[in-house]
C-alpha cells in the first residue's frame, strides 16, 4: 500500500485540461494540411502523381483527407510549396465531400445533427468494431481511457454490448470477412444510432484501397454520421470530434 502511495505521488496528476485549455503536440505531428493555391502547377502535378494514396487533386488544388494517410511525402517532395501540414489536430467532418479541401474544414460543432446533441450530449455509449485494419486506430482509440485523455469524464464510454450502445465507431477498411459482423452489430443497436468512421481505412480503404478483399468504404454499407480522418487519427483528433459533434 505504501508503495502504491509513493508511486501515486511520483506519477502525479496528468489529465489534460482540454477543451478548456489547448493541448500542444510535438512539432513534427502532421495535422490539418494546407494546399497552397499559388504553387506552380507543374510541381503540383508531379507531387500529386507521387502521392501513394492519390489524395491530391492538382487541377483543383485540393487534398482528400479521407484518402490521405498523412505520410507527409507531398510536403517533403514539394519542400512545402504545395502542401504544408499544420499542428492542428482538429479534423473531422459530417459529410464525406467536406474532407476534400484546400485547407479548412467547416466547424464540426455547427454542422452536427442537433438531435444527436440533445440525445447523446450528456451520455454517449459507443461500441467499437475493428474491421480489417492494422490495429493502430484501435490502439489510439483505446488510449482515450488513459489518464491524460480520460474520455469518461465527458460522459462518453465504450461498451461491450451493442444493446447498451448508442452507436458504433468503426475502424478498418471493412474486410469481406467482417462485413457480416459489422452489419449484425449495427443492427443490434437500438435506433436512433450513430455511425462513426474512424481512420482513412474506414473512410476510403486507406492503404488497402483497390484490394479485392475489402469493401473499402463504410458509408457504402451503412450511412456514416461522422468522419474522423487520420492513419490513425490522433487521440486528440478523436476526442475533439466526439466533443464537438455531441456536446
Amino acid at each position: 500500500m505504501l508503495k502504491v502511495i509513493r508511486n501515486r505521488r511520483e506519477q502525479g496528476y496528468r489529465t489534460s485540461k482540454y477543451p478548456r485549455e489547448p493541448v500542444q503536440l510535438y512539432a513534427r505531428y502532421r495535422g490539418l494540411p494546407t494546399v497552397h493555391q499559388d504553387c506552380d502547377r507543374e510541381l503540383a502535378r508531379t507531387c500529386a502523381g507521387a502521392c501513394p494514396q492519390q489524395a491530391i487533386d492538382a487541377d483543383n488544388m485540393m487534398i482528400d483527407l479521407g484518402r490521405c494517410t498523412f505520410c507527409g511525402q507531398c510536403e517533403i517532395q514539394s519542400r512545402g510549396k504545395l502542401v504544408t501540414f499544420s499542428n492542428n489536430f482538429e479534423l473531422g467532418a459530417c459529410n464525406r465531400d467536406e474532407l476534400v479541401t484546400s485547407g479548412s474544414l467547416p466547424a464540426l460543432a455547427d454542422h452536427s445533427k442537433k438531435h444527436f446533441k440533445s440525445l447523446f450530449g450528456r451520455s454517449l455509449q459507443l461500441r467499437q468494431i475493428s474491421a480489417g485494419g492494422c490495429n493502430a486506430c484501435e490502439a489510439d482509440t483505446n488510449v482515450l481511457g488513459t489518464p491524460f485523455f480520460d474520455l469518461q469524464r465527458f460522459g462518453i464510454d465504450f461498451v461491450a454490448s451493442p444493446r447498451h450502445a448508442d452507436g458504433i465507431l468503426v475502424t478498418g477498411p471493412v474486410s469481406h470477412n467482417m462485413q457480416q459482423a459489422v452489419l449484425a452489430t449495427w443492427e443490434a443497436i437500438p435506433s436512433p444510432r450513430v455511425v462513426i468512421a474512424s481512420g482513412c481505412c474506414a473512410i476510403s480503404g486507406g492503404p488497402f484501397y483497390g484490394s479485392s478483399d475489402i469493401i473499402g468504404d463504410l458509408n457504402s454499407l451503412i450511412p456514416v454520421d461522422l468522419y474522423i480522418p487520420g492513419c490513425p487519427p490522433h487521440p486528440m483528433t478523436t476526442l475533439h470530434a466526439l466533443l464537438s459533434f455531441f456536446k
Partner: protein
Amino acid sequence: MDNLLAIDNGKAIPRSDIPELDFSVFRETVVQIVKGAGSPVQFFAYEDEQKKLRLLTVLREDRQLYVTGCLPGDEYPALTRECEKFHLFEREIAEQFGVRPTGHPWLKMVRYHANQRQKQDIFGNDYRQPIPGNYPYFKVEGDAVHEVAVGPVHAGIIEPGHFRFQCVGEKVLHLEIQLGYQHRGVETLLEQKKLHPGRRPLIAESIAGDTAIGHSLCHAQAIEALAGLEVEESSQRIRSAALEIERIANHIGDLGALCGDVAFTPPLNWLGRIRGEFLNLLLTLAGNRFGKGLIRPGGIALPVTTEQRTLIREKISAERAGITHVCDLLFSAHTVLARFEHTGTVSCGDADRLGLVGVAGRASGLDYDVRTSFPSEACHLLGPCSNQRTAGDVYSRASVRREEISHSLAAVYRLLAEERDAVPVAAQTHPLAAESFVVTLNEAWRGEVSHCLLTDDTGAILRYKVKDPSFHNWSGLALALRNQGISDFPLCNKSFNLSYCGFDL
C-alpha cells in the same frame, strides 16, 4: 550440404542459386534440420514465370540461414506429420494455392479466402457466402462438457477473432482459435504489378500498426538489398532506435494491461500514460505515434537532428525512474504474483515443438533473438539482454518484458548519444534486380518479423511473403489455456498479446 544454400539476412541472391530438389529429398532435408536444432523462418508457395508452382523454405539453425526449394505437384505428403512447426505454414500454402498436404493432422482454413489458382477449395468452402466457414470446430463430448464461443466482435476495443473453448466447469480442456476476419489481401496487394510504387511502404506499415517499425524495416531492407542501396550508419542508428522505442511502448502497455486483467488498477493507469509518452517519441521522429512515415527504402524520410535526439534522451531520463518504481510495485505485489505465477504455462519442450518466437519463446526458455542471431542495422551496438525467469508462465512473459524495457531504454539512450545528424533520403522508384531472392528478419517487439521477396525476369515483384511472429505464437496461446480456468483467458491472452491483423494479412 548441397541441398541447402547458406544465405545472409538481407542479402539478395539470384533465384537460380536456390537449390531445386526432388520433393522427397527436399522433405527429408528440411525435416532433418527442423527435427534437430533448426526452425522454419519462411515456408511458402509461389508460381514462377511459367506458372509452375514451387515451394520455398528459409530455415534457421544456430546463427545461419538456409534456403532451399522444390516443385510439389498438386499434393504432397505433409511435413507436419514429422514436425509440428510446419502445421500452419502448410495450411497457409493449401489455402493460398490449393495444394493439399496429405496426412496433415488438422487441415483447416487459415484466413477464409479463395486460392490464387482458381483451384477447387481444399476446405470445401464457398467464399461468395457471407460466412464461408464450412468447418466443424473441435468438440469434446460428455455430459459435463460445455462450449464457450467468443467473437469475432469482442467486448472491448480489440481486433476480431473467434475463440472456441471446450470446458468442464471452469476448466478449459481445449481452446481453438480461428482468425482471418482481418484479412485484407496484403500479400496480393504488394504483388500487384501496377501498384503505385510509393504504396508499398504504406502497406508495409499497416501490416500490423503496433509493429509499423518492425514491418516497414523488413520491407525497406528487402528493397534496399534488391536495389543495391546503401544505408548511412546514422540512419541505421535511428531505425534501430525506432524499433527499440516501439518495443518499449508496447511492452509498457502490455504490463499495464496485465495489471488491468488482475484488477490492480493503479499501474494500469500509470503504465498506460507512460506508454503514450513513448508513442509520442515515435511521433517526434516520424510525425506519427506509430512511427508511420519514418522508414523508407534507402534510409529514413525525415531528418533527425540534435533537437529530436535531445528530446528523446531527456524524456527517457525523466521517465526511467518512474518506470522502475512502477515495475517494482507490480512485481512485488502478492496479489499480482499469485495470479501471474504458474498461470498459462507453456513448457520449453512444447514451445520448441511449436516453434514459438520472441517474448513468448524466450519466456519458455528458447533463447532466440534476431538481434543477436542475425543482426542488422545498428543491432551490434545494443548489447545482450538476458532473461532471469523462463518458466513459460504469465509471470515469465511479464518479466521478460520488464527486462527488455530496461535493456531497450539503455540502448536507445546509447544509440542517440552520437552527435551526428541523420539525413533523409528522397522517395523514388528503385529498379529491382531481376530473378532475385531476398529474405529479411528483424526482432520486433513480439519477435521475429520476416519478409521474403522474389522478383521475376523483368525485376517486378513475383512473390511478396510476409510473416508476423504471431503466425508462430497463436498456437502457443491455445496450448497455454489447457487445464486453466477460463477466467484466466484474458490474462493469458494479454501475456502473449498477439497480432490479429499481422496474422490475417
